């Protein structure tokens, strides 16, 4: 855990030493702010003091931003050869993966933290039901973590960042849409299985303000699976170009 934290700290420093972190935060705030406060079915149109519009927009924004954050994690280290520096130290491939994951998750957390003024503003506009808001944020974090794990796994498969981005997008799309489409077109146990595997469904469930252990287990399992697969892939392929 110590090694993972050290890697996470260094990685987070790199995010903020480059335009990366600022771009992510600005892009997220710009998109979510535009659709939440100004355009389409914004808060004023709805006339209800809640953040459901924001959570829907944030869900889509993260869908694009997460592969952009995760694509460089391992692919870049492999390409530049700096994975050699990590893997010849007393650091296991899984610790490298976990460190990268912690840093990316912290960046998502900080990005979501920047939307706290939305919550405060809505709370001043009218009576807010705090449950769905807290659960909505928790849902965004959990879904973000699961997608980050998938993105890091995609990054572990290649030394090309663009390939890692597309691979992550495809993997996320499979869980976001693919499973819903399959669930709609199948019945019985298989249909239920596809429905359970759909990230969108679990996110919506949390967004309603209901904390269901099945949603938590789903997101945590997907995150753990992505991280373990990335760790295994890194241990298998090592630092050589994949």
């Amino acid at each position, binding site marked *: 855990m110590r090694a993972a934290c050290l890697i996470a700290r260094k990685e987070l420093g*790199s995010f903020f030493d480059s335009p990366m972190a600022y771009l992510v935060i600005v892009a997220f705030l710009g998109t979510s702010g535009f659709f939440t406060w100004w355009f389409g079915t914004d808060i004023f149109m709805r006339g209800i003091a809640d953040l459901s519009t924001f959570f829907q927009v944030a869900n889509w924004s993260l869908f694009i931003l997460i592969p952009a954050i995760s694509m460089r994690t391992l692919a870049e280290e492999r390409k530049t*050869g700096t994975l050699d520096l990590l893997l010849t*130290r*007393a*650091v296991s491939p899984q610790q490298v993966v976990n460190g990268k994951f912690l840093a990316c998750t912290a960046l998502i957390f900080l990005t979501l933290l920047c939307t706290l003024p939305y919550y405060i503003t809505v709370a001043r506009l009218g009576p807010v039901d705090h449950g769905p808001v807290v659960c909505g944020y928790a849902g965004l974090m959990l879904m973000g973590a699961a997608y980050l794990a998938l993105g890091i796994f995609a990054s572990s498969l290649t030394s090309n960042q663009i390939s890692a981005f597309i691979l992550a997008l495809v993997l996320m799309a499979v869980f976001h849409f693919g499973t819903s489409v399959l669930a709609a077109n199948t019945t019985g146990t298989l249909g239920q299985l596809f429905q359970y595997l759909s990230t969108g469904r679990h996110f919506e469930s949390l967004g309603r303000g209901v904390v269901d252990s099945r949603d938590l287990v789903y997101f945590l399992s997907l995150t753990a699976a992505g991280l373990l697969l990335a760790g295994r892939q890194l241990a298998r392929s090592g630092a050589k170009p994949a």
Partner: protein
Amino acid sequence: MDLRTEHLTKRFGPQVAVDQVSFSVQPGEVVGFLGPNGAGKTTTMRMICGLTAPDGGTVLLGGSAMSPRSMELRRNIGYLPEANPLYEDLPVLDLLRFGARLQGVDRTLIDNRVACMVEACGLGDEKHKRTGELSRGYRQRTGLAFALVHDPAVLILDEPTTGLDPNQIVEIRALIKDLGKSKTVVFSTHILSEAEAVCDRLLIINKGKLVAEGRPDQLRSKGLGGATYMVRIPAAPLRDALRLLQGLPHVLGVEKGTAEGAYEVRMSVPAAESISAACSAQGWDISELRLAENRLEDVFRDATLN
């Protein structure tokens, strides 16, 4: 801490990159790893460091076998990769601190270790710069400092002087030689004079196999079983003498010497008598026929071309 490899083997598809390589290096010894490009030097070094899993054989550090899980053993290794990759956005001091922390150096000792490395590798003027802003020479020094910052017992350096200017090469060689007094050092190079100047022992690898091993003077004197003779035949016409000498059995090559009528004859087996017999048959007087010390270049060529 001694380093031993036993029948180390690595295959990439049908190609055997490293084939049953066994050697040992003792503490206080600097061993040079020589071989042409693609001979298997880097692959062997990566297997020693645990970066590449061998298909056969073992790496033993202080008697314990290296494995992907042997984290404690890795604390004893310092590795400088051939391309010397560095985190470009980190200043030198932060990079060294990061390396020391990763290797579990005691928190109270880290600043002291980093200061020692900055001093030893001559990074004082550049220590606040990001590594991406450093010149080639300083990058190499930073890579070396990163490999050394946790004070490892075993040092694996893959072509550490590549791209350095002559002054920097001399400094880095002196540093390696100094480190070799207390540590187990393996370093690869293409520069034979460098290997001879720095190393206590040389390993020559070709096509994945260890083809020669020994102290530089041993390798030169043994010449891998061959011999080089200095012959002087003042009366013989140049072209005739060259044709005669080149036509003798076991002759690998003949070069004209600097003196009048002098030739350097490299033979795969010692056979001075065949030279003198051939010259006598031609009626040429030999004014000098002596066994010359092999040059390391010749030993290297014999080992890697035959």
